[in-house]
C-alpha cells in the first residue's frame, strides 16, 4: 500500500488527524496527571525539596542517603517479606480455590466467586477497621477464640507486638488480594481446550497429570498476569499499615510505601520521598521483567 497517489496520502493524513482528535481528551489527562508527575518525580528526586523554600540541587544525594538510612533498609526488608509471602500464597491459594469451584453448577460458582471478592469491594478502610477490632487486645474475637480453644493463655496485643504485627498485616492483605486472581483463574480454567483434556483422559492420564501437563500450560499467561499484579499490589500495601500500626511497633511494619508517605507528607521531605518512589518503581519494573522472562523460558 505504499503509494504516492495523492488520494491515499490525503486519506492517510485524514486518518492521522482523526486518530489524534479521538485521543486528545484522554491524552490531556494522561500526559497532565500521569506522565508529567512521573517526570517530575524523577527530576525532584535529585533535589532537596521541602515546602518552605526553593529546591536545592543535590545530585545523587538523596539516593546516597537512602541506602544509609537504616529505617529505609528496614522498610525494604519488611516489604520484601510481605511480597515473598503473599505472592506465592495468593497464586497457589487462588488457583486451588478456583480449581474447586470453576466447574460447579450455577449459581454456586458465582456465589463463591462473589464471596471471595467481597473483601476487595468492601474497601480497604472498612476492611481495615473491622480487622482492627477483631485483633483488639481486649474486645477482639481472636483473643477470645484463642483462649476458648485453649491456644492462648492470656490476651495477645496482636498489632502492638513486634513479633505478630507484620504477620497480622500479611494475613489481612491476603484476604484482600485473592479476589481478583480467583476471578481470573475461573475464567482461564473455563477456557481450557476441553478436547485436549478429554483426549488425555482417554489415554488414561490421571486428573493430576491432566492438570499439570495440559491445563497448567494453558493458564500460564493468566498466572503470569496474576504474579505481576499481586507483586505490584503487595508493594503498594498502604491503608492497612497507616490505619493499623503506623509502621510500628518499633518499625516492625514499616514498608517502603508507608515510609514514603511518612517522609513526604509528615516530614515534608519531598525530594527524599521522590527518590524512594523512583527506587520502588525500579524494583517493581525489574521484578516484573524477571517474572516475564521466567514465564517465557518455561
Amino acid at each position, binding site marked *: 500500500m505504499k503509494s504516492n497517489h495523492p488520494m491515499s496520502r490525503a486519506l492517510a493524513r485524514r486518518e492521522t488527524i482523526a486518530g489524534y482528535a479521538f485521543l486528545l481528551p484522554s491524552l490531556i489527562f494522561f500526559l497532565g496527571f500521569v506522565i508529567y508527575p512521573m517526570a517530575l518525580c524523577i527530576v*525532584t528526586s535529585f533535589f532537596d525539596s521541602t515546602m518552605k523554600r526553593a529546591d536545592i540541587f543535590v545530585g545523587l544525594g538523596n539516593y546516597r542517603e537512602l541506602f544509609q538510612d537504616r529505617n529505609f533498609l528496614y522498610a525494604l526488608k519488611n516489604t520484601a517479606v510481605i511480597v515473598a509471602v503473599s505472592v506465592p500464597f495468593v497464586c497457589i491459594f487462588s488457583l486451588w480455590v478456583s480449581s474447586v469451584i470453576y466447574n460447579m453448577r450455577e449459581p454456586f460458582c458465582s456465589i463463591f466467586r462473589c464471596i471471595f471478592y467481597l473483601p476487595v469491594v*468492601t*474497601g480497604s478502610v472498612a476492611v481495615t477497621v473491622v480487622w482492627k477490632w477483631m485483633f483488639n487486645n481486649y474486645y477482639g474475637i481472636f483473643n477470645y477464640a484463642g483462649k476458648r480453644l485453649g491456644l492462648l493463655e492470656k490476651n495477645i496485643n496482636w498489632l502492638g507486638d513486634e513479633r505478630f504485627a507484620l504477620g497480622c498485616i500479611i494475613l489481612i492483605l491476603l484476604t484482600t488480594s485473592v479476589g481478583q486472581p480467583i476471578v481470573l483463574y475461573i475464567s482461564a480454567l473455563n477456557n481450557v481446550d476441553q478436547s485436549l483434556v478429554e483426549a488425555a483422559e482417554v489415554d488414561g492420564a490421571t486428573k493430576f497429570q491432566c492438570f499439570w501437563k495440559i491445563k497448567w500450560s494453558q493458564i500460564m499467561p493468566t498466572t503470569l498476569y496474576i504474579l505481576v499484579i499481586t507483586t505490584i499490589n503487595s508493594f503498594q500495601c498502604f491503608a492497612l499499615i497507616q490505619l493499623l500500626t503506623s509502621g510500628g511497633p518499633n518499625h516492625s511494619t514499616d514498608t517502603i510505601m508507608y515510609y514514603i508517605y511518612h517522609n513526604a*507528607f509528615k516530614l515534608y521531605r519531598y525530594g527524599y520521598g521522590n527518590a524512594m518512589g523512583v527506587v520502588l518503581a525500579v524494583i517493581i519494573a525489574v521484578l516484573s521483567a524477571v517474572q516475564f522472562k521466567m514465564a517465557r523460558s518455561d
Partner: protein
Amino acid sequence: MKTLNRSLCYKIFSTAIVVLLALAFAFPLYWIITGSFKTGRAINAAAPQWWPQEWVLDNYRTLFSRQKAPLWELHIPFTNLAVTGPSLPAALRWLTNTVFMAVTSMLLTCVTAAMAGYALAKKRFAGRTLLFSLIVCAMALPKQVILIPLLREMSALNLYNTIWAVILPIVGWPFGVFLIKQFAEGIPGEMMEAARIDGAGEWKTFLSVALPMIKPGIGALAIFTFISSWNDYFMQLIMLTSTGNLTISLGIAKLQSENSTDFGLIMAGASLAAIPIITVFLIFQKYFTKGITMGAVKG
C-alpha cells in the same frame, strides 16, 4: 472403582474446605454490619455476641449527630466560586462527595477511554505504537509514586483540597484506554468501510459503528472505575483535608483516629461506606467480572 472413590472423597473434602474459607471471607463484612447495630455493652463484653441480642440504632444516631456540613459545595474548577447546600450531618456530606467523585470519574473515564481506545485500535497514524507502549509502561508502575508531584501540581492549579484533585488523576490512569482497545480490536474493518462509503464522517462512524460494539467494554470499565475510585484511599488522604471535603473512606479513618475504641460507631461508618458499593457490585457483577478478565487477556 477405587480411583473414582478417591476423586469423590477429594471433591467432598475440597468443597467443605472452600465452604469454610468462604465463611471466613464473608465474616468481616458480617461483623461490620452486625457490629454497627450492637449496644456499647455488647461490643465491649468479654465474650463476643455472635448474633446481636439487642438491635439498636445508637451508633448510627451518634454518627449522624456528630459534625454538620453543608450537603454539597460545588467548587467550580480554577475559581473560588462555590454553590452550597443545606447543613446536614457530615457523614452524609462524605457520602455525597464520594458519589460525586465516583460518578464523575466514571463518566469522564468512559468518554475519554472509549474515544482513545477506539483510535488506538482502529486508526493507523504515526506515533501510535510509541503511545501504546507508554500506556503499558505507565500501567505497570506503582500509582502511588506520583502522589508527591501530583500534590504540588494540584496546589499550583489551585485544586488542592477539592474533589477534582482526586478525580483528574483517576481519569488520567490509562487502564481504561487499554481495556477499551481490547474490545475495539474486534470491530470488523468492513463495517467501518461500509459506513464510510455511506458518507458517514469520522464522528458518525464512531457513534454508529464502533460505540455499539464496544458497549460491553464501556460497561465493564464504568463499574470498575466506580468501585475502585470509591475504595481508593491513599490519593484521597493526600489531597483532601477539610471536614467538608472528605470522602466516606477518609471519614471512617477520621472516626477511627478520633474514637479508636468506639467500635460500634466505627462499624456504623464502615457499613455506610461498604453497603452502597457492595450493592452496586452485586447488581453489575457480570460486567465487572468481564472487565477484569478482558483487561488480563493480553496483560
